[in-house]
């Protein structure tokens, strides 16, 4: 049996996404900038996709910029606004658990004279909001907070944060990395007070290499990629039409029967948590304090529906990962994006996981395609493997 439980790393594309992409690749392959009919046809796909995404966010299509993915969306959001509003001040506030595609551009800005504050999080992976509010000063230009953490699935109170920071300083620009949240939550930037929002295609059964940035119409942005002036000069380069069409289709599909899908994921998440926490020497990371040991649904719903982070005492995560792989179960150690680096994950350190468990933590991430049978099988394998692997360790 093959069970893919690494959906926070990437997801399988759906048949409908595949079909529309093939159609664009083979039939409607024109360049949207071309004057002739082929160009117009290609442009139609872009307009449709922008409309679908805009509808899902309840914003205007002109507020959507297509990028090469979540990473570029985050880079454009942060560097693009920092450059446009340099005169307002050079202070940016973010959190200690951001994805590297937020963290690294901010370090780059720091090297170039910006002051960056990194707000710590508690054991459940929620930021200390008071510390964030207290950090705001006259120079504060951008606040960037991720919606759902990619490693432990903790969720920030985005709406409340937006409201409070703007109360303190109303011209703060609020950026939200929603790569892990989009398709799992209904996100309405206008109502929620979000100025910039990054999303990605391949986390929602769309293709890789495509993402988008929502930019509130009132926000000025400087481009970070220069060229022929595509997308109103904000993102030059011939648009990746097949992927854009695929992204549009994926967004349309993910918000169909939305509540049902999310509830299904929460039920599976609850099942995973209950089963794993019943094993010896296993802790589930990033759950709210209220959760204690009964794992009520109302508490689980305070976290994202698709991510479970679990630490297995005395088992190295990489070994467990490969042993599970051998049984057809695919999970991730920490976060797949950071697995290239031998150093422990910043998020896991930030929530205060004991040092010896840092290297014993795996992430299980599901999608609405995941079935209960698959979860049962995966749990079965974990239950069987963990004691075996524990016997053989470095002494």
């Amino acid at each position, binding site marked *: 049996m093959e069970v893919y439980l690494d959906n926070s790393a990437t997801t399988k594309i759906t048949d409908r996404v595949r079909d529309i992409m093939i159609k664009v690749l083979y039939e409607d392959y024109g360049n949207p900038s071309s004057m002739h009919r082929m160009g117009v046809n290609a442009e139609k796909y872009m307009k449709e996709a922008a409309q679908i995404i805009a509808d899902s966010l309840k914003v205007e299509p002109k507020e959507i910029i297509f990028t090469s993915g979540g990473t570029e969306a985050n880079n454009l959001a942060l560097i693009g606004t920092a450059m446009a509003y340099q005169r307002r001040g050079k202070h940016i506030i973010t959190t200690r658990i951001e994805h590297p595609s937020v963290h690294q551009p901010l370090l780059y800005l720091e090297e170039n004279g910006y002051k960056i504050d990194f707000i710590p999080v508690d054991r459940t992976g929620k930021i200390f909001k008071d510390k964030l509010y207290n950090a705001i000063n006259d120079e504060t230009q951008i606040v960037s907070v991720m919606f759902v953490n990619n490693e432990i699935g903790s969720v920030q109170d985005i709406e409340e944060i937006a409201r409070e920071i703007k109360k303190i300083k109303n011209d703060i620009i609020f950026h939200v990395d929603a790569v892990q949240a989009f398709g799992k939550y209904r996100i309405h930037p206008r109502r929620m007070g979000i100025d910039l929002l990054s999303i990605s295609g391949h986390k929602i059964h769309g293709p890789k290499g495509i993402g988008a940035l929502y930019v509130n119409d009132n926000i000025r942005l400087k481009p970070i990629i220069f060229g022929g002036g595509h997308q109103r000069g904000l993102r030059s380069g011939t648009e990746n039409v097949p992927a854009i069409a695929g992204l549009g289709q994926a967004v349309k599909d993910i918000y169909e029967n939305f509540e049902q899908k999310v509830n299904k994921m929460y039920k599976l998440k609850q099942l995973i948590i209950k089963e794993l926490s019943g094993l010896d020497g296993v802790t589930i990371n990033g759950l709210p304090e209220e959760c204690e040991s009964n794992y009520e649904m109302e508490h689980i719903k305070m976290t994202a529906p698709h991510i479970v982070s679990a630490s297995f005492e005395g088992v190295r995560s990489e070994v467990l990962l*490969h042993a599970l792989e051998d049984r057809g179960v695919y999970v991730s150690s920490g976060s797949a994006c950071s697995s290239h680096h031998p150093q422990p994950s910043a998020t896991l350190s930030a929530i205060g996981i004991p040092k010896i468990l840092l290297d014993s933590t795996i992430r299980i991430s599901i999608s609405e395609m995941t079935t209960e049978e698959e979860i049962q099988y995966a749990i079965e394998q974990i239950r069987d493997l963990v004691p075996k692997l524990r016997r*053989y360790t470095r002494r």
Partner: protein
Amino acid sequence: MSMFKAFLIKYAEIGLKGNNRYLFENALCDRIKDALKPLGTFRVFKEQGRVFVECPDDYDYEETVEALKRVFGISSFCPVVTVADTDWESLTKAVGDYVEAMYPDADFTFKVFAKRADKNYPISSPDICSMMGAYLLGRFPNLKVDVHNPEVSLNVEIRTKAYIYSVEIPGPGGMPVGSNGKAMLLLSGGIDSPVAGYMIAKRGVSVDAVYFHAPPYTSERAKQKVIDLAKKISRYAGRMKLFVVNFTDIQLYIYDQCPHDELTIIMRRYMMRIAEHFAKQENCLGLITGESLGQVASQTMQSLAATNEVCTMPVYRPLIAFDKKDIVEIAETIDTYETSIQPYEDCCTIFVAKHPVTKPNLKKIRHSERKLEEKIDELLETALKTVEIIEIE
């Protein structure tokens, strides 16, 4: 397009080989052909104790030089300009043009070396030297002759064509692979073993390799890393077979039965046994390891004695007296270093004890191994039977 149309290949040690000399020369020609095959249709031939490479019109000079630098047996090689018209006037003009193209300043001391392989050529070698020297002095006023310590040694050889060269590019030295039998390399993902394989191959030895894979403790990427390293070695050593042995069950059995501080030594004894099995199967005449005296606990003299004991074949340890930094230097030269330092664990380190024995007592080790009697034969048989063989080209 390069002005050079041929390369003159120089070899040092092969020259010493008496009656076997032609075997070595043939092996050298074959290895040069192998190395240049992917780059185009080159002609490689022997002529009067010289090996020449003639290049196709559209060849890439840089690429060809890089390929020749990796052929063992070449001590150095010279890019050559060929001249079809050997009459004196054409020849002098060609040599003058060569100087102009190679040394635009034309300000150096030089000496002409002439060789008349075609004895029908009307001018003798000493005369060619002096007449050519005179011509060049006339054409380039800043040149000076220095017969003892010339900055430029200008070679002119008259064969059916004339060959002009003055630049010598160092080759890797050693002897052509295939001129000296075959050996089995114990290849891990580390820095040392690829260098050891390279060094033995340099002595003319063909190399096969064995890698011990321990899933799930070592990953697919660790295996891919070893395949990548094997490919890098094969750029010098030619095609090789890589034997991937699943070592997990043997390792866990040793872990269960034997004292933990002896784990690495006993494990290595089984690796040597398995490597020797495949070495015999492939008609190898020895094993190669990357061991370096005292580098880690399993490489003390006592430990090496303990692992060596289980082999009947000679074990070649070319790095035995090398410091790590010298090994790293070679690894960087042969471009294995970057691959070796990728952070994937290999099976030697996964269970390594905090304090492994550094002076293993052979009697004790043998005694511990007796605790494996019940299942080890069966496990070995499975490991040998399930070996995966990867052909590296």
